[in-house]
């Protein structure tokens, strides 16, 4: 338990001295200023704004559907996205969107490396937010490390309490906003505070508060390093022309301390100031080369450029660059940017195809659908006068958010007579379909004995909506005693 296992440990260790758990140093990233940091602040503000703002957007869908622009109505089994409405049987559209997102990620990775990880991943965005709050309360890297080492005091306790309370508050706001995507936002927020929102809502908020606090506050870079599968398979999308955060060893080495006024002859531009390491949110040294742990956030680029400014040297000792460019620059050749490659074109084509497929599925979505469930027990009934009758349940899907009326007729069953349960005495009745519901309509089809030839008859139900001039046909089969 006592010994720490490091490279400086003795060549052997006593069995009893192997620690129960590993002692990993805490990463305390230093504040950095620069254009990449500014871009990250901007992306963070936009993404958090989207996350917290979108549920409040209204979208008028008439009196029979919710007016929230984006709403996943779990009890109602519907999802609303602006003009689009997705039913459970259309979940393949959501699956398609996930495929589009995945391929988009592959495309972005092949082109620009792990930009998703560094800028847009919720883990990065929320960790950044938590670190910002931490810095406000406990100070920058040096002060935090000092506070960590300091003995217990009321001041330390106060700072710790303030930090964790703020983190939990942000977590609660994160969980609190998540449920807005599944509930009517203006209704559920007051309900949340008056205690009348229901167990599912409180449970979700509590779970997401805890998970946000743990992921963004406690686990941080360990999520990226140990939990995230994407970090592990990113290398499959990389090639030598992928943009990655790179240290240029040809320019930087041999590294070493540098005194003002000293010549740069015979040595590298890296003064081993470790600024790139200190600002790194995952605690790695970019000078060791491309690593799985690197989330490609580019903060080390800002840190190194700030030092280069102070030294009067050009930017770009650490920069977004490609592996082949590092080799070219080392060999004294100009940089070549090859963004159009078989890999990026391939991902691009597949991405566009998947996107087109999803858009087509959304646009071509039928507002009225019908399916036929034929009675199987029994297949047919013999009536007093010898006629045969089949029973069916028609499932009529009204996927519009307005009430509709349809007429049902038989198509291609000579002699067949249709009667609709509860509408037996009406002539060509119109069946009411409530908005956004599946109506189950019981119908009976009667065929005179003389029209039955001993073989099943294939025909169709025609569902016609006269108001919208929509027609849907649903295939059916008439059964009787086979000869």
């Amino acid at each position, binding site marked *: 338990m006592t010994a720490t296992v490091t490279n400086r440990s003795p060549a052997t260790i006593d*069995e009893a001295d*192997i620690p129960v758990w*590993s002692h990993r140093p805490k990463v305390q990233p230093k504040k950095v200023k620069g254009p990449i940091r500014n871009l990250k602040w901007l992306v963070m503000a936009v993404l958090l704004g989207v996350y917290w703002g979108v549920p409040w957007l209204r979208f008028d869908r008439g009196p029979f559907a919710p007016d929230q622009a984006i709403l996943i109505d779990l009890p109602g089994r519907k999802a609303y996205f602006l003009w689009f409405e997705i039913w459970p049987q259309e979940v393949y559209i959501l699956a398609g969107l996930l495929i589009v997102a995945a391929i988009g990620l592959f495309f972005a990775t092949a082109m620009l490396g792990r930009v998703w990880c560094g800028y847009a991943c919720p883990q990065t965005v929320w960790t950044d937010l938590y670190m910002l709050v931490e810095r406000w309360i406990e100070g920058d890297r040096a002060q935090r490390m000092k506070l960590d080492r300091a003995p217990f005091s009321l001041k330390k306790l106060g700072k710790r309490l303030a930090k964790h309370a703020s983190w939990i508050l942000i977590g609660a706001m994160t969980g609190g906003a998540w449920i807005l995507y599944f509930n009517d936002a203006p209704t559920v927020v007051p309900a949340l505070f008056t205690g009348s929102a229901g167990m599912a809502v409180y449970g979700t908020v509590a779970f997401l508060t805890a998970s946000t606090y743990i992921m963004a506050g406690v686990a941080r870079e360990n999520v990226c390093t140990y939990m995230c599968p994407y970090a592990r398979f990113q290398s499959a999308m990389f090639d030598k022309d992928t943009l990655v955060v790179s240290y240029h060893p040809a320019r930087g080495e041999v590294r070493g301390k540098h005194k003002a006024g000293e010549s740069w002859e015979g040595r590298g531009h890296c003064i081993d100031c470790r600024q790139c390491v200190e600002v790194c949110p995952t605690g790695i040294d970019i000078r060791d080369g491309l690593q799985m742990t690197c989330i490609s956030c580019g903060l080390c680029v800002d840190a190194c450029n700030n030092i280069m400014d102070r030294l009067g040297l050009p930017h770009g000792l650490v920069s977004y660059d490609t592996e082949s460019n590092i080799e070219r620059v080392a060999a004294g050749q100009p940089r070549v940017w090859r963004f159009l490659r078989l890999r990026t074109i391939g991902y691009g084509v597949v991405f566009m195809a998947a996107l087109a497929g999803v858009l087509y599925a959304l646009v071509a979505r039928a507002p009225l659908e019908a399916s036929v469930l034929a009675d199987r027990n029994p297949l047919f009934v013999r009536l007093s006068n010898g006629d045969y*009758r089949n029973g069916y349940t028609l499932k009529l899907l009204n996927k519009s958010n307005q009430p509709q009326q349809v007429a049902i007729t038989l198509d291609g069953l000579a002699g067949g007579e249709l009667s609709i349960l*509860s509408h037996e005495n009406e002539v060509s009745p119109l069946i009411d379909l409530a908005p956004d519901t599946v109506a189950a309509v019981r119908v009976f089809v009667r065929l005179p004995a003389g029209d039955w030839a001993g073989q099943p008859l294939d025909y169709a139900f025609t569902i016609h909506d006269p108001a919208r001039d929509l027609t849907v046909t649903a295939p059916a089969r008439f059964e009787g005693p086979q000869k």
Partner: protein
Amino acid sequence: MSEHRKYEIDPVTGSPVHPHTWDGIGELETPPPRWWVLTYVVCVLFAFGWWVLYPAWPFVSGYTKGILGFSTRADVAEQIAVAKAAQAPLNDRLAKADYTVIAADPELSAFALAGGKALFGENCAQCHGSGAAGNIGYPNLLDDDWLWGGDFATLQATIEHGVRATTDGDTRQSMMPAFGKDGMLTRAQVDDVTAYVLSLSGQPADAAAAERGTQLFADNCAACHGDKGIGMRETGAPRLTDAIWLYQGDAKAVAAQVWNPRHGVMPAWAGRLDPLAIKKLVYYVHSLGGGE
């Protein structure tokens, strides 16, 4: 135990290497992360907590109950009670509604049909079949032929009081004499009546025998089955002119029924089922295709 083995340190990872090697391949003894160890410990503690709070350890007969007294059976009972409470408003409306009111109200109609279907499966399907298509001796409830009538009121009376039910004074009674067995008709006369009956529904029959059977039918059968066998619902006497036969419609089966008739029994359901359940059943059976 006092002998501690020495582990070599792997220079690349800094982790101890287990002294035992497998075909020259060593294994790193990298300590697990702290969160992992702590999670493991918490899980163990959670298990102990679970044993105390919830049913856990089996005995030869019985098990540890846990101090929370949780049981899945009680849980199910509670869920059923919740479901029943949720159905209460619809049940109340249904109890007050007339059959025509139910038919005009899609929500009530769907509720009555769902309830009726479940009740039918529990109580009626054993004889009438799960699809209500009946069987030989058990009427088909889907067709448009009824022994006693297929409107709501008649269906309700039949279900409430049954057919030839010994427990109910108001049960539907009908008894066809055993014409052959009790010596009222000879074998030849039974065959003649059978030929006539077959001719009523347009089935092939010996014309001469049918001719001889006409008078026999008028004398012996028409009192209940009506003139020309059109049936009589007051007595539950089947119509003999259609394509529906309770005990099959071929010559052998008809002759057997005239010689020594079989009589089915249906229990009286009033008392076994509450009025609301019977109402749902009536509505369901009426919807099956033969409702009048």
